[in-house]
């Protein structure tokens, strides 16, 4: 194919990122720039009010899309180590940009946007927790939302019923789902594949039904209301703005903790054993991996993360009801993990943004939300069947002492 640009420029990662960013821009253009307006019963499209900040977020989002949609051949720079064709410096730059962006966000955004950002961060943390279970250990847990529910209700009931403060309740919100995950996981983790999935699905339904029917304790379908908001050294309760800022900071900190945890676990023997038993359980066992205990640990750690996410959710909403913990929520969560590319934190984060934030931003297109969702699913299936980030990065790299290094 002939081109006006020099081939070396075209082959450079920057050009590719720009190219895909452009594609992503065209794809998501209507959601950010246009809104549906009701003019005397006739729907028409009109331009959004101009918001520079929103456009900046849009730009960053598109750039990320660009990075992840990079064609696979480009990733395999060195044959021995398939990786992003982004240099370490560029990666560092992106990371710094991201952190700065996340930190100044509460200062420049309005309440709705900050609220949305908090929801997205919590969803990302929850999806990351599920990535440990589904992506790393390969356990298709369709009842993951149940642990989220238990964490949320634990905080809701402890705070409204017994006046336990947020920080005192937090360890319990992790412990309770963990104990539950242990008790449930002990027998059912011996099941394989589909059977495990079905039993966990049933478990989530049992928890939800229990929440609806144990009216005297959980408030039944009405849920629990007036859950106190968290404060830190007296800060965070003054007014609505401060409260929202507090919740955002908490969600951000928690997401960072989960990110650090999952990145670290992956390179430890534990994380490697998870991946090994996902790949081949029999071989793992023949090498001395206690398969059952490894699965149990993934299940319990995943449940703890979900439980704390649940506590944050309850604290943010100030209200919990069984409606927030349906199978559909698990399905969306699973979609984030699978779309993101099983096991890749950034891919999963991107998918979480796509699934949580886009429908919110494009509220005026709410009727077409599922349609759009389906379209994205189909596109991903066609173009990136392994999810956004498919290139698996080894947990350890062999670096020869001398000679060329695989990069």
């Amino acid at each position, binding site marked *: 194919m002939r081109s006006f640009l020099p081939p070396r420029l075209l082959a450079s990662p920057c050009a590719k990122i720009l190219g895909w960013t452009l594609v992503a821009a065209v794809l998501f253009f209507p959601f950010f720039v246009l809104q549906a307006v009701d003019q005397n019963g006739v729907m028409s499209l009109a331009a959004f009010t101009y918001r520079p900040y929103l456009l900046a977020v849009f730009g960053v989002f598109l750039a990320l899309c660009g990075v992840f949609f990079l064609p696979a051949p480009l990733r395999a720079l060195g*044959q*021995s*180590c*398939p990786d992003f064709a982004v240099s370490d410096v560029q990666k560092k730059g992106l990371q710094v940009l991201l952190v700065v962006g996340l930190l100044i966000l509460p200062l420049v955004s309005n309440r709705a946007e900050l609220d949305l950002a908090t929801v997205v961060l919590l969803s990302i943390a929850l999806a990351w927790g599920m990535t440990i279970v589904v992506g790393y250990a390969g356990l298709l847990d369709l009842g993951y939302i149940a642990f989220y529910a238990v964490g949320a209700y634990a905080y809701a009931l402890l705070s409204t019923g017994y006046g336990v403060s947020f920080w005192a309740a937090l360890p319990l919100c992790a412990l309770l789902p963990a104990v539950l995950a242990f008790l449930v996981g002990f027998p059912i983790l011996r099941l394989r594949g589909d059977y495990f999935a079905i039993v966990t699905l049933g478990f989530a339904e049992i928890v939800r039904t229990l929440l609806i029917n144990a009216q005297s304790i959980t408030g039944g379908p009405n849920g629990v209301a007036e859950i106190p908001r968290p404060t830190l050294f007296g800060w965070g309760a003054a007014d609505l703005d401060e409260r929202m800022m507090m919740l955002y900071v908490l969600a951000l900190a928690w997401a960072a903790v989960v990110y650090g*945890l999952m990145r*670290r*676990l992956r390179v*430890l*023997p*534990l994380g*490697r*054993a998870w*991946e*090994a038993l996902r*790949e*081949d359980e*029999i*071989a*793992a*066992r*023949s*090498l*001395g*991996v*206690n*398969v059952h205990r490894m699965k149990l640990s993934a299940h319990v750690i995943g449940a703890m993360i979900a439980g704390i996410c649940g506590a944050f959710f309850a604290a943010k909403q100030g209200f919990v009801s069984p409606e927030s913990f349906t199978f559909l929520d698990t399905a969306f969560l699973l979609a984030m993990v699978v779309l993101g590319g099983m096991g890749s934190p950034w891919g999963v984060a991107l998918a979480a943004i796509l699934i949580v934030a886009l429908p919110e931003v494009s509220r005026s297109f709410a009727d077409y939300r599922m349609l759009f969702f389906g379209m994205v699913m189909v596109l991903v299936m066609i173009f990136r069947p392994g999810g956004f980030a498919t290139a*698996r990065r*080894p*947990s*350890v*790299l*062999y670096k020869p002492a001398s000679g060329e290094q*695989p990069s």
Partner: protein
Amino acid sequence: MSNVLTVTDLSMSFGGLVAVDHISFAVKLGSITAMIGPNGAGKTTVFNCVTRFYTPTSGQMVLTPETGSALDLHTLSPYKVAKKARVLRTFQNIRLFGQMSVLENVLIGQHSLLMRASSCSVAGLLNLRRYRTAEKDAMDLALSWLEIMGLTEDANRPAASLSYGAQRRLEIARCLAGRPRLLCLDEPAAGLNPKESLDLKNLLKTLCYQHGISIFLIEHDMSVVMDISDHILVLDYGRLLAQGTPQAVRTHPDVIRAYLGEDAA
């Protein structure tokens, strides 16, 4: 020479089918013992019993390490056969962790050791020096085996992307990283070309005579079996037909009858 593995009166039946019928044998320390026999003779079943993938119907299997007390394999759960007794095995149809890199595969071979060093991940999460040293040692050991197997160049590649012969070698390297007392190889030469199976022969000899690893293997390739084995077991219909040195087995009338038919004997 003392025995590293002593099997007495081992039987395994699936319902009415008797796959292994009261066989007794021993694997000597620091030697290569081969098990041969026609398809369906029960060779892999014996392997699965020894590595406790199956629970034998009856019989005793005792592992006697060079130092320390004897271990009754019967009482160990499958993963403990690898962890405590350090009886490690390969599989007839290669079972690698395909998506994981070659180096990661070999590190999984040292799982129990690293897991202990990371104190079930606590020391690992805190990145204590104790764990860092253990991790470095594990890396060095893994790399030294990869070097011997000629896989150093491919250390960062996904295991599934290796050639067939290299995959077989990786599977052996993965076991070796676990410091085996007994290395069980299920048809290591299957699917190898003549040059690769020659290399395999030399490799197994090196492992046995230089590294002192006792090897117990199942093999159909007679050139491999006859050349390297110290002791050969012949199985047919689940029964031990004959055993002895390659020379003795080669001329044993029952063996000739089983392989070549009634007239040949």
